[in-house]
């Protein structure tokens, strides 16, 4: 089975399904109509070619340079990929040499915005299958559950922190940490002063010894 084509087929299906969930995305996609973007992720074996029309077509880009005439070509590592969501970062990434871009930066920026600005009403999507009442109740319950879970989590974290700061605990407060750091700094200064004084005394003793030696030999 042609595995790369299976992968591109999956990416293409997912991208277009997601775009369909946001009615405003068609307008933004139209700005890219007729353009193409080649993405080479260094960790992946195949470069991908995105062609834009009323939908996004994803292909394996040919290894033959004559075949791969895209409006914009970007080359990057996997770790940089999530940063592309913010199109304002593109120039910075290029300067940091984390992103290699050849061609029209507008294509990359518009594609990045297209994905970042997706606004999907998940409640409405669910309502298509379950009806408005069930969808609304499901989402309200989920939101309440999330809120409760978040509140419980925050409280647990606070209690845990408090327990750790008790007299017999293994942790200290921030003030205690600052005081301890100041003590350490004082001790370091004292030690440095003492070391300097010892060095000076040693130097004086050595000079006196040399002078005595000179006098003895002159007699």
């Amino acid at each position: 089975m042609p595995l790369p084509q299976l992968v591109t087929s999956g990416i293409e299906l997912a991208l277009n399904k997601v775009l369909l969930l946001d009615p405003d995305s068609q307008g933004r996609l139209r700005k890219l109509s007729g353009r193409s973007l080649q993405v080479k992720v260094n960790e992946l074996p195949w470069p991908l070619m995105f062609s834009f029309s009323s939908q996004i077509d994803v292909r394996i880009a040919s290894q033959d340079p004559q075949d791969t005439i895209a409006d914009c070509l970007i080359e990057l590592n996997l770790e940089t990929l999530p940063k592309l969501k913010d199109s304002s970062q593109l120039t910075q990434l290029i300067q940091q040499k984390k992103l290699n871009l050849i061609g029209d930066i507008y294509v990359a920026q518009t594609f990045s915005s297209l994905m970042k600005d997706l606004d999907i009403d998940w409640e409405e999507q669910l309502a298509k299958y379950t009806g408005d009442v069930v969808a609304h109740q499901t989402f309200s319950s989920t939101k309440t559950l999330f809120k409760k879970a978040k509140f419980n989590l925050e409280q647990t974290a606070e209690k845990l922190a408090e327990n750790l700061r008790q007299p017999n605990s293994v942790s200290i407060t921030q003030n205690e940490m600052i005081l301890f750091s100041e003590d350490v700094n004082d001790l370091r200064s004292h030690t440095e002063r003492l070391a300097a004084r010892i060095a000076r005394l040693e130097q004086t003793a050595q000079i006196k010894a040399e002078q005595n030696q000179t006098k003895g030999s002159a007699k």
Partner: protein
Amino acid sequence: MSASETPESQPQQEQTTHFGFKQVDKNQKVNMVKDVFQSVAAKYDIMNDLMSLGIHRLWKRYTIDCSGVRAGHKVLDLAGGTGDLTAKFSRIVGESGQVILADINDAMLKVGRDKLRDKGIVGNVEYVQANAEELPFPDNTFDIITIAFGLRNVTDKDKALASMYRVLKPGGRLLVLEFSKPSNEILNKVYDTYSFHLLPKIGQLVANDADSYQYLAESIRMHPEQEVLKGMMENVGFEQTTYHNLTGGIVALHRGFKF
């Protein structure tokens, strides 16, 4: 047989050709193939998905990946049937390009046209009923020609390849996606059993037509295997001709350039 020779100058045995495992008169084959596709046109897509478990979509994707198509190209999707390749080519070549979906069979062409229009694919696609052996286009017209699962149904394959070569622009390429010979003997036997025993039964069940799918299995066996087809392409002038086996050689994609 060279494209310039007339049927009259041929010995009697060259007046016939195969239709599956049968030998038929060359003039009859076109109509017989037409009858097959007239019969299966309505159920063509669903049968393709069933027979190949959907893998035909990946084979066609591979063909497009190897085509080097880009905006502005002029593409001929020969024996394009229900327009799977045309749909994708149309979106990629954009408004500045053009795709011609050609098929000898009007029923297939009608199904393809209706399907593409329903998908909103209009504007840069034209539909032409054409015989691959005598393509009704001027010389040096297309950047890319594809023929997917169509060449084995053509009566005179050499003549068809020569015709494709003629209408291709210098620098253009032909892609032939076709059933071929599995490279592994065990796979070959499994495939044989599937083709001759299971396939006609699926055809009977879904399309109510076992004979057409019996023909499909037979026509696959009669189609020239990989190296032979490569030689045929080279004989009519294609250069840098290569082929790539897909799914163990059940299908092969041949690619040749005109320079």
